[in-house]
């Protein structure tokens, strides 16, 4: 493999690994905040125990997120020196702000994790607020950088050097509002469904104690609200991309000829060499109607653009379909859960519903990763859309092959160990809870 491909592979693997922990780092603190807050307010030890249990798991998750995030800040330079030399001064500002958000999150997490007995209950709970806020802020700041890569603004170029910079205009570039909000709600969506999956699995295995009966609905509140918002912001994003990056839009929709009254392709396989998408369910005029509100509106297809500016259409279309499909399914799953909960006046324990929730956890991760595939593959061949090609940004170092191999092994080892530890931790907590309840049972 050449250096560009290897750099993309390493960066993609690192980002794909990190983002799982990053989104949990955004969403889980909010759940902890809610659980501990309700516990204090209602003097309910079960809610407090839940917050403590989540904190234990979160300590592990946050640490892996922190170290894998460090890998990314190094890799920006190690893999993409051309990109960083060109754009560091333009997009450094949101990165710096993210640095501070990370600082606050790490500091207050230290206080939160180790301060259960050192701080008064209210002070301890207050520590969860900066964690939740800075977690969300980190996501907003970092995604600003990616948004800038999609719609670069705020600088003037002379030759291949940047001469004038407006860092605020770069941070608040046209893509920022849609991309930022969509990613933030997706982080809550993934956190909600992932936590729900854990407790749904607990119910299925017969551990449905008081803790489970609190944890599952709380996670599902977050999940269902976030899926609604993800749908709305996803729609806004797609409309924005249609204007701002028409090539990406045409690729995600698998649309080759510029068409008046364009159909919506559901599924299907785009064949770039034959300039058509096959095996798709085609709904006539729907794409035009969805995008412009006019069933006969003209939508630009890929054929309007030079071939050397096309991304990998197959990957972009497939990822887009995966994201949208899973997103809709997750939303329905959340609605169904609450419908059943309302009918049963309590957390539904129907086997099929619980099974669906267990699947929904990993599915939400897949949906989120697919979304990033659309953004990143869809922007190719550019690293900075319309400004710098990915091929000119990569490093020239000869050591990339071994680096890739080592990082693959490393991430596998970290992922497996973390999973094993979380499972063992859950088992142990359960055993402890069981002995506690037999001890306190009246004789």
């Amino acid at each position, binding site marked *: 493999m050449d250096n560009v491909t290897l750099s993309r592979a390493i960066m993609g693997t690192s980002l794909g690994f990190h983002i799982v922990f990053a989104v949990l780092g955004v969403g889980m603190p909010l759940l902890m905040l809610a659980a501990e807050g309700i516990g204090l307010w209602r003097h309910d030890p079960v809610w407090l125990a839940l917050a403590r249990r989540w904190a234990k798991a979160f300590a592990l998750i946050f640490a*892996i997120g922190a170290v894998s995030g460090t890998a990314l800040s190094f890799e920006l330079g190690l893999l993409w020196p051309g990109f960083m030399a060109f754009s560091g001064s333009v997009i450094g500002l949101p990165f*710096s*702000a993210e*640095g501070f958000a990370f600082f606050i999150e790490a*500091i207050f997490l230290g206080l939160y994790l*180790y301060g259960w007995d050192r701080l008064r209950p209210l002070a301890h709970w207050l520590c969860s607020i900066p964690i939740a806020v800075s977690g969300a802020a980190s996501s907003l700041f970092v995604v600003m950088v990616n948004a800038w890569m999609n719609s670069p603004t705020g600088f003037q170029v002379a030759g291949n050097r940047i001469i004038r910079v407006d860092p605020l205009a770069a941070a608040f570039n046209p893509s920022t509002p849609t991309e930022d909000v969509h990613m933030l709600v997706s982080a809550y969506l993934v956190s909600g469904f992932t936590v729900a999956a854990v407790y749904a699995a607990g119910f299925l295995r017969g551990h449905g104690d008081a803790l489970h009966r609190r944890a599952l609905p709380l996670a599902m509140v977050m999940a269902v609200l976030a899926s609604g918002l993800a749908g709305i912001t996803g729609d806004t994003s797609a409309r924005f991309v249609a204007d701002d990056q028409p090539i990406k839009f045409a690729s995600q929709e698998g649309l080759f000829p510029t068409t008046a009254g364009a159909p919506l392709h559901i599924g299907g396989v785009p064949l770039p060499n034959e300039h058509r998408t096959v095996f798709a369910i085609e709904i006539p005029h729907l794409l035009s109607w969805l995008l412009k509100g006019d069933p006969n509106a003209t939508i630009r297809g890929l054929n309007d653009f030079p071939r050397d500016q096309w991304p990998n259409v197959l990957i972009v279309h497939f990822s887009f379909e995966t994201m949208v499909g899973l997103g809709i399914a997750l939303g329905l799953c959340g609605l169904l859960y609450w419908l059943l909960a309302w009918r049963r006046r309590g957390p539904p324990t129907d086997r099929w519903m619980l099974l669906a929730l267990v699947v929904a956890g990993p599915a939400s991760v897949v949906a989120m990763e697919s979304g990033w595939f659309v953004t990143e593959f869809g922007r190719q061949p550019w690293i900075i859309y319309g400004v710098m090609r990915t091929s000119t940004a990569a490093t020239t170092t000869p050591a990339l092959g071994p680096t890739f191999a080592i990082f693959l092994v490393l991430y596998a080892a970290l992922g497996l160990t973390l999973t094993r530890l979380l499972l063992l931790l859950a088992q142990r907590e359960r055993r402890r809870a069981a002995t506690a309840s037999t001890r306190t049972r009246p004789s």
Partner: protein
Amino acid sequence: MTGLTLADAVAGILLLALTAYAVFAGADFGGGVWDLFASGPRRKAQRTAIAAALGPVWEANHVWLIFLLVGLFTAFPSVFATLSTALYLPFTIALLGIILRGAAFTFQAHGEEAVGELAPWGFVFGGASIIAPAFLGAALAAVASGSVRAAGGPDVTTGWVSWLALDLGLLAIALAAYLAATYLMVETEGDPPLQADFRRRAVGAAIVSGILALTGLVLTWRQAPLLWSALTGRGLWLLIIALANGPIAAFAVWRGSPRIARVSVAAQMVFVLWAWAVGQWPALVPPDFTIHGSAAPESTLGALVVTIAAGMVVVLPSLWLLFYVFKGRNPAPGLTDHRA
């Protein structure tokens, strides 16, 4: 102090961040070293004390590195790109060390109550804590000795494979261990035998780092004329302070005055780093990159300084709170000490 610009101010802030990383995170790496070399009848107590000292603060300490990286590529993007290319290998290896250290520590600290001792990860924690400072030290040697050039090719061994780099790599480990042992003397004030263990370790580390530092000076004189002229030029007064402070710190350690030792050992780290930085000013990465020549446009620097000022208004009191709650006379409890 005329002629100082915004770029100098940002370079100064980055030096402070590097110093903070060295003084705080350096000690966390040193903790890993002593975890690896825990020995004697109080072996387990040593490890527990190290874990308790690191637990609440290591992630916050680690953020100084992120701050440094981000600040560097915002304010001096071409320098960041050149360093990343020229020092690809030591940075990648240090990065692996940093990742493994953090992950292993967390697996141990939070996993122990679930599975007991976590066989390979304890060893990984110590090993990675040695690798990270060693390669960062070697990279620093390459920068300081003027081996990182603007037109450097993709040669992966440039500059950091030298006797000086070897010496500074070892010195980084020794100083980290020295810092950690001194800080741990304060943390274990309530347990005299354990404190004596760390005092012995601190004395050993003081001797080793003293020898390595003096060797480094000789090597610099013989092999790194650029760094030598920096240290004996503008940086001379800081070098002299460092040479004078070294024995004071070692004496405080030997006498068993942990609080004086903690301050003077940390100060030693500061003087060494500043002697280099002040000495080479106005170069950032000598000889090709000066602070002014490689700085980002003024608008970026201004926005960065404002962001940092605003950020520090929130971060510094928070850091103070963190250290107030868990440091000083309040050593942190182990995670397993308390129950719901």
